[in-house]
């Protein structure tokens, strides 16, 4: 099991369209619209590294996405 955060920056005025497209993608555990250096934080849960690449590719292909930054989770503590 591979988990990662994908930090997404969008072009101004494209946030809603990007979100709509993003909500169609499989394997996304959560999608959060945030205020800060990034616009969207996506949490991904996949079985293989190749699947993570597929997800990032799908996000890249969404019109309005400017840049992404993938942070692979090495260890996690949660409620």
């Amino acid at each position, binding site marked *: 099991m591979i988990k990662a*955060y994908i930090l997404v920056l969008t072009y101004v005025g494209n946030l809603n369209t990007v979100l709509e497209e993003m909500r169609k993608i499989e394997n996304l555990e*959560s999608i959060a619209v945030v*205020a800060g250096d990034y616009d969207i*934080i996506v949490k991904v849960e996949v079985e293989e590294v190749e699947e993570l690449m597929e997800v990032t590719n799908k996000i890249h292909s969404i019109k309005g996405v400017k840049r992404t930054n993938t942070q692979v*989770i090495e*260890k*996690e503590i*949660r*409620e």
Partner: protein
Amino acid sequence: MRIRIRKKNLFYLLALLSSVIGAGVTVIDTFITIKYDINTWSLCLVVFLAGIVITFILALLLSIPVGGKPIGARIDPSFPGLRLLRKEEIPYQVVAGFGNAVATVGYFFIISIYQDPSTILSFFEVVILYLLITESIAEKNAPSMAEVESSIIVTFGAIMASFSFTGELNLEGLLIVFLVLNPAWVIFSIYQRKLKLLRINDRPNDAINIRFWNLVFTTLFTAIMVYFIDARHFFAAIAALKYWPILFLSMGTTFFSYIFYIRALGLGKASVTQAVKSSTIIFSIPFSFLLAAYLPISFYESIPQLVIKLMGIILVIMGVISFALTEVRAYIFIKAKTGHPSITLIKDIWAIKGVTAVAAVAGKYDIISKVRMRTLGKGFERIIRELEGIEGIEKFEWHSILKEWEEI
């Protein structure tokens, strides 16, 4: 494609669905008590005996695969089909089953000795505050002040809405509620939540298997208790299985109420789930009017009682709404200083009140943490101050969450 909705919305949807179905169960149970000649103690056991059978049948039906997934996965996406109990679940199920059995026996003890126990039983609603106190002591993510306020509003509202002027009210009955019924229900709720948060085969545990196995343990403990109270009631309970159609209807409906309740427990705190579930009182009103057409029961006994009931209902609604307005969440991206391993740092960050998840990551940052607080100002101050106190953090960036969808 799976449905992706906001976690908070799903929590309220599940808890309220459980309440609506629970209100239906209350009416069926009132019907059974009035129309069927079953001794109180025999009824206490026979509901569970019938419950095991109907729950097993329903769980089997829900295990039938359609489109590659069991039908039950539409009710709980984690449901893999009916399965055997896992070793790691046993201690939790034993404790939860015992709690449920004690709470049930306590309830039936009260209705067996009092002519009109409705006033005494209205104090069961205080269980919300018991859960709140338990969570404050035992859980890292203690309830916020706003949650405490809302819980008190709901508790008092629920007591007012279910209070009866004609019912008996004495110290003995109250002691049973406060010292037996409520603590046992707390154990039951907390351990059901622990079961829901367990991961089975690296997947979240499912409510359907939790409910089925909980019934098995509850029935076992209840059977032992009823046998020792009076063995005749034990055998009369088995004989009462002849009323299986109505018992199946009651426990089959209860099954769905519990599935949504257990799922809600997995998403929110036990106290908040219980508080939202207090809205059963409101949903039972239309059912009660329906039942009043066929049975000698009434929604209120006098105009003053009706006024108090309505005030209580308004308080419950206000309290439940105010729960929904108390959350602020954020992500914090953290860079660690050289020589300070992230694995050690995440333990220090996890100790901060309000941190709901922390992950050591490989990439531009070293740690990503998720936090939850009551107000942005107060929580921000508290969390930032704590982070600044941790040796090994070079810098951090705060990203307030404006809106979030989660796949459940």
